[in-house]
């Protein structure tokens, strides 16, 4: 089990990672998701021992590893561009870590062969690194780290350099391998799909802090901050003011659009400025005003038919544009709506979120 407590790291005055607390359970697949420059790679390097924190502690399986240098930790990394040694063969690359441990050469051979088999590269140990395709390099890098049976495997955007199709395929392979070897994976990425698809839990980082840590569902459906809501998946936002009515229900007053009910969020103070946020697929389009608590009136500005769903841009009365996805559940030969049609949008109260402005930045 990895425990990160209060870790802070700054480079020449700039904070890269600020007071991070994180626990990763054994066998877990944890993703660290965030935009570039949020500090996720630094956090990874701190765990790997390639950097050392300015303050805070790191514990691995109960041992303090804060000041242990990289080559003495039982933590291995798959690097962003793989960092395969160009002057060695596939076999030598994979055997590198084992040889550093001065393992018996026969055992090394066995382990490397097992690893190659795991990565669908059976019998290709003699190949030179430069002859490998991107996907193969990625798998070699993974195996090179895995054969050392690390307590923790770190992956620094290992799929970033690959094209989309290969990426999807390798996502599955990676998860499959992880399930087989049962090693703890910490996976850094800026791609939300990847994070949601593969992880047991996701930590969303922004501005050197973890904004939210939870299962993919939690992250998507119950974002704690506006950043998380907007970074993971699309979001529509209406600026307004919070009001709590006599019945204790939360209401957001949006200027010139009306008032809307919403889930009781964290802030329940009257008069707080903030944003009412609804995901595009949670909105439903009606041609006539529905009998719902939350209804908006608008005009279709643009629509694109994408097969599984249709994407709409709806212009509201105050000029604000909302994105709406409608599942194409019915079999229609022509479009259900047209540009410039006047329509109504409705959603269920528990589908919306309110984030106070103070928590925005």
């Amino acid at each position, binding site marked *: 089990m990895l425990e990160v407590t209060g870790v802070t790291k700054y480079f020449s005055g700039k904070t890269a990672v600020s007071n991070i607390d994180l626990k990763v359970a054994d066998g877990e697949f944890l993703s660290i998701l965030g935009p570039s420059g949020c500090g996720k790679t630094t956090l990874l390097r701190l765990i*790997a*021992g*390639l950097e050392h924190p300015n303050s805070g502690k790191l514990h691995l399986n109960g041992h303090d590893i804060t000041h242990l*240098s*990289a*080559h*003495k930790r039982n*933590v*291995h*990394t798959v*690097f*962003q*561009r793989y*960092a*395969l*040694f*160009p*002057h*060695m*063969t596939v076999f030598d690359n994979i055997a*590198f*870590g084992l040889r*550093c*441990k001065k393992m018996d050469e026969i055992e090394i051979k066995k382990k490397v062969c097992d690893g190659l088999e795991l990565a669908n590269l059976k019998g290709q140990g003699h190949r*030179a*690194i*430069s002859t490998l395709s991107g996907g193969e390099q990625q798998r070699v890098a993974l195996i*090179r*780290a895995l054969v*050392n049976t690390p307590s923790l495997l770190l992956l620094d955007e290992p799929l970033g350099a690959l094209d989309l199709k290969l990426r999807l395929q390798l996502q599955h392979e990676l998860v499959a391998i992880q399930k087989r070897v049962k090693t703890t994976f910490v996976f850094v990425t800026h791609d939300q799909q990847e994070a949601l698809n593969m992880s047991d839990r996701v930590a969303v980082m922004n501005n050197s802090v973890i904004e939210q840590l939870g299962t993919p569902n939690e992250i998507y459906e119950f974002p704690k901050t506006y950043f998380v809501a907007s970074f993971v998946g699309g979001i529509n936002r209406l600026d307004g003011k919070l009001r709590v009515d006599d019945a204790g229900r939360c209401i957001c007053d949006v200027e010139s659009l009306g008032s809307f009910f919403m889930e009781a969020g964290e802030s329940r103070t009257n008069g707080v400025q903030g944003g009412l946020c609804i995901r595009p697929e949670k909105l439903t389009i009606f041609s006539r005003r529905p009998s719902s608590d939350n209804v908006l009136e608008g005009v279709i500005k643009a629509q694109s038919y994408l097969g599984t769903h249709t994407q709409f841009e709806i212009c509201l009365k105050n000029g604000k544009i909302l994105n709406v996805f409608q599942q194409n559940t019915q079999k229609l030969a022509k479009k259900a709506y047209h540009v410039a049609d006047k329509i109504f949008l409705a959603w269920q109260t528990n589908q919306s979120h309110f984030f106070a402005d103070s928590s925005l930045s």
Partner: protein
Amino acid sequence: MTRNPQTFRVATFASLAWLWASFLVIAPLFYVIAISFLKRGTYGGIEPVLTLENYTRLADPYLSGTILMTLGRSVWLAFLSTVLCILVGFPLALFLVFKAGRARNALFFLLIIPFWTNFLIRTYAWVVILSDNGWLNSVLESFGLGPEFLHWLFTPKAVLIGMFYNYLPYMAMSLYVSVEKLDVHLLEAAADLGAGPLKRFFKVTLPLSIPGLIAGSIMVFIPALGEFVIPDILGGGTSLFVGNLLAQEFLTVRNWPFGAALSVILILMIGLCLYLFEKVTKGKGEDLIA
């Protein structure tokens, strides 16, 4: 010609290139090879008589001792200089790339500055430093290192110092360029996989710096093999190297055919070195060049 102006234009360049190559590279070398098979005249000069004498002289048991010794001495000196340059130049290059930080560019420029003063003058400065009553001995004496004189000037030590001094920047720069290209992630990956600092150097940094090491070695070893000014000024002419021997054969003794034979042998030795170096880089470089 109008049909293919491209080839016509290249032909113009090529003809000038061949003019240079044939007159200033090929012809002189072939001429030297040719006269190495001729006889010398009484007052120098060449007599057009074909002979192998100049080469058999090298195998002459009476003479070969001295000539071969000179060749051996030159190779040994060039080798020592190269090794010394590597031993000092490599850590220096590593320091410049990984440790120097902001001073990196400035320090690199400082490496080049010695090249801008005259080579002979730089070498002469060592005469002043290494002289019996020179700076080095006064420093050593002030440290209480023996009242008896330590000889530096006109000894093989002085020649080695001069060679090392003169060729170190070449080696350091060549290694610097190579080390600078090294992907830091590879070192991190090695550390991550459990390699300590020494292992990282020998398994990753060193093998990946081999192109620079070879280039640097060529830049040091080959000129050092033919060097004759440094041994002349700092060695005092008491132990001769191939370069001095060549200068002597051509400008004092005027036995051009024999000098030519010697230089043919020198060229062959250099060719052999280049071949070996190329083989080493090829072996290592196959997977470096995608």
